[in-house]
């Protein structure tokens, strides 16, 4: 890391700024994607059964969703404009490909979310339950469409396809190939699963915390059960999709794979459980591993060699010391989630899911883990593609804006101070909302569904 101290230039500071702002940002869309899906489930349950507990859960999680969504919107605008302020080289060269993808994100997702969000948050008394439900579905759909375009553009930069280059500028040649580039579908699925899992663990953690403290028990039980309806199938599925993502890295970004595994020499690879990679000397100062298992995982064969980082010139080697560990954090959490899913299944069969105190306590601690995994995964993907921003084609150093180091230092400092204060407060309000819990909200006085007066209060009674 010492050599980077001397090169604290606009490029490095811009990378730090982008990394910093996206680390905060990504938490909110991930939570919004997951919670929007959860709101759809809760509202559907409420409309079907008319049970008050679903109504209260729906209103409670809507409040949490609103906070998360609001913070996602404002932190997202920052990213959109940073593409221009800090990465104008990238935009001048690849704007004709990345720009239309981002435009379609706005056209198909942001406006959909924004249009229906007002009804979702404020429209309980203004529109029919059916219109409200449609609005919730639209917002949830919008969050997934947004992720679609963002993952398409990011994946295109990882595994570029469908373009031609003239005078250093990237021109679109085949939009289908650009969007459905080799890594897109798997990475999109991986990200969506991650968002749903991370959010489900938040819901499970909150429910567990209520159960431990004997609060809102009739509400916390369905909450916990619903969270595991999500977690039990998704946790194993995510491991399989993660493996597929790994195979794509192996095929398209061999240097990234070598850095993730701290593999310096080409050969049969052990599964390194612990290592201290030394970038300068191009070796590991220390390592413990299980022989041949790394080859089995990445090549699906015990004897297949894995290309080592030494086969790449030093300037082309991603930083193994960082992504070896970020990758392990992500994978470790993935398997921990799998273990929790298995434990929950066993406890559910034994009918002890709601009462096993050690398990509930573990769940409260596990609630932020999904987000740690998401951030660690992103660091692995993004640091692992260095020194390129468009893999193999455009170097990060050629993508940066012609701005002064002073400018970027100033903006970075302001973002750090602002984000700490503002999003610090945001997390505090989130925690407070969760602490006070799903308090009573009067059932909606829905006078009509269609033109028929409702019998009683519940919309289900009108069916």
């Amino acid at each position, binding site marked *: 890391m010492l050599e980077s101290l001397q090169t604290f230039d606009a490029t490095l500071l811009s990378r730090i700024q982008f990394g910093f702002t996206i680390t905060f940002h990504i938490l909110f869309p991930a939570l919004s994607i997951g919670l929007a899906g959860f709101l759809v489930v809760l509202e559907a349950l409420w409309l079907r059964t008319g049970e008050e507990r679903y109504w209260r859960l729906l209103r409670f999680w*809507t409040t949490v969703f*609103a*906070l998360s969504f*609001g*913070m996602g*919107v*404002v*932190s*997202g*605008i*920052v990213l*959109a*404009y940073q*593409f*221009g*302020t800090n990465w*104008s*080289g990238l*935009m*001048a060269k690849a*704007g*004709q*490909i*990345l*720009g*239309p993808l*981002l*435009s*379609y994100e*706005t*056209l*198909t997702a942001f*406006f959909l979310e924004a*249009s229906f*969000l*007002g*009804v979702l*948050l*404020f429209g309980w*008394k203004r529109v029919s339950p059916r219109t409200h439900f449609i609005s919730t579905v639209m917002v949830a759909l919008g969050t997934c469409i947004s992720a679609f375009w963002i993952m398409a553009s990011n994946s295109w930069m990882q595994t570029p396809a469908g373009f031609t280059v003239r*005078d250093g500028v990237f*021109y*679109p*040649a085949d*939009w289908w190939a650009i969007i459905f580039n080799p890594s897109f579908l798997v990475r999109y699925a991986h990200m969506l699963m991650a968002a749903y899992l991370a959010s489900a663990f938040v819901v499970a953690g909150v429910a567990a915390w209520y159960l431990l403290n004997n609060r809102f028990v009739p509400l916390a039980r369905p909450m916990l059960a619903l969270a595991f309806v999500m977690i039990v199938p998704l946790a194993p599925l995510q491991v399989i999709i993660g493996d597929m993502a790994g195979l794509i890295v192996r095929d398209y970004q061999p240097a990234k794979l070598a850095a993730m595994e701290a593999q310096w020499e080409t050969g049969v690879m052990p599964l390194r459980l612990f290592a201290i990679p030394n970038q300068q000397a191009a070796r590991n100062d220390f390592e413990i591993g299980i022989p041949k298992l790394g080859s089995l995982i990445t090549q699906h064969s015990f004897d297949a060699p894995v290309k080592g980082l030494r086969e790449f010139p030093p300037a082309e080697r991603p930083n193994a010391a960082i992504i070896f560990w970020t990758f392990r954090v992500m994978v470790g959490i993935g398997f921990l989630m799998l273990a929790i899913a298995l434990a929950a299944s066993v406890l559910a069969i034994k009918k002890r899911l709601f009462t096993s105190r050690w398990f509930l306590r573990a769940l409260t601690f596990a609630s932020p883990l999904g987000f740690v995994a998401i951030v660690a995964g992103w660091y692995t993907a993004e640091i692992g593609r260095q020194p390129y921003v468009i893999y193999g084609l455009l170097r990060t150093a050629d993508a940066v*804006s*012609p*701005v*002064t180091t*002073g400018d970027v230092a100033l*903006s970075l400092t*302001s*973002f750090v101070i*602002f984000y700490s204060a*503002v999003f610090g*407060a*945001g997390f505090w*309000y989130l925690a*407070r*909302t969760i602490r006070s819990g799903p308090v009573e909200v009067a059932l909606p006085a829905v006078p009509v569904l269609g033109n028929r007066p409702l019998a009683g209060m519940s919309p289900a009674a009108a069916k």
Partner: protein
Amino acid sequence: MTTWIDADWLTLFMAAMVAFAVGMYVVLDGFDLGLGILFPFADDDDQRDQMMNSIAPFWDGNETWLVFGGAILLSAFPLAFSIILPAVYLPITLMLLGLILRGVAFEFRFKHHPRVRIWDIAFAAGSIIAAFAQGVVLGAFVQGIEIRSAPSYQYGGGQWDWLTAFSMMTGVALLCGYALLGNTWLFWRSLGTLQQKAKAWMPVLLIGMLAAIGAISVWTPLMSPAIAARWFDFPRAFAFAPVPLLTVACAWGAYRALQKAPSVVPFMLCIGLFFLGYSGLAISIFPSLPPPSLTLFEAAASRQSQLFLLPGLIVLVPLILIHTWFNYRVFHVKTDEDSYGH
């Protein structure tokens, strides 16, 4: 592809879309930023709640136009995007910080019991900072951006090029304009003492807005001979003569409408004022993007990018407009009947 789609026609259409998106942003987020600018002048929490509630369902949709404006500028004119943004690095950063501050204030303000002042201050300060910074960006853009053409087109000026007397003036001008727009919204959608206040503020703000438009109109031709020639060369000048005349007519109409029952009329006429000022700027700089040395035809993306965007723009933008209109209908209530009830 078919030959009847002329590349220049498409480029002009894209330029019109960028102008439209930015214009929609200015009007829509303009009035809710304007409410933030007027926020410190409200009498009590009740009035502040009314103000906040009247825009709570809309602000997020309004800000979406800012993202859209940026995205469409990037797609259709990637060179312009990559030259303009580094040129206004610090004002854009300032705008982003302002937008964060006021954006989160919407959520945080109602979460805090008992009330704390800090989110009121954050909402007002964030709105003022964002509005001023946007005005500075506008000024820096109009006064011209230095470009280096070798090895490739990029921003060629310095760190502080944007900081001029002109850009400070346009910053204040936009503050005035947004405050006026926010005030006409209040006059239309609030009740009781707040509405009375809005009525009382209006003449001052109208005069401020006219002064701002006047100052920009005089300053820009003085600053640039090309702009002067555009406006004062006969006989073309006759074609543009309606712009200043309509401006005065709109302002007068807005003032007259105040004397009658509260309605949407002053709001609409102020949108008219913005539209005229905006058209004036467009007449001044067309077809530069960014002024002075690059044209929008030079900055345009390739045909493949434009054609890919075209169906999305033609199909989705009208849908978005219809839905925006629907949303303003659903939440069309006088503000004190409603509350921040999510």
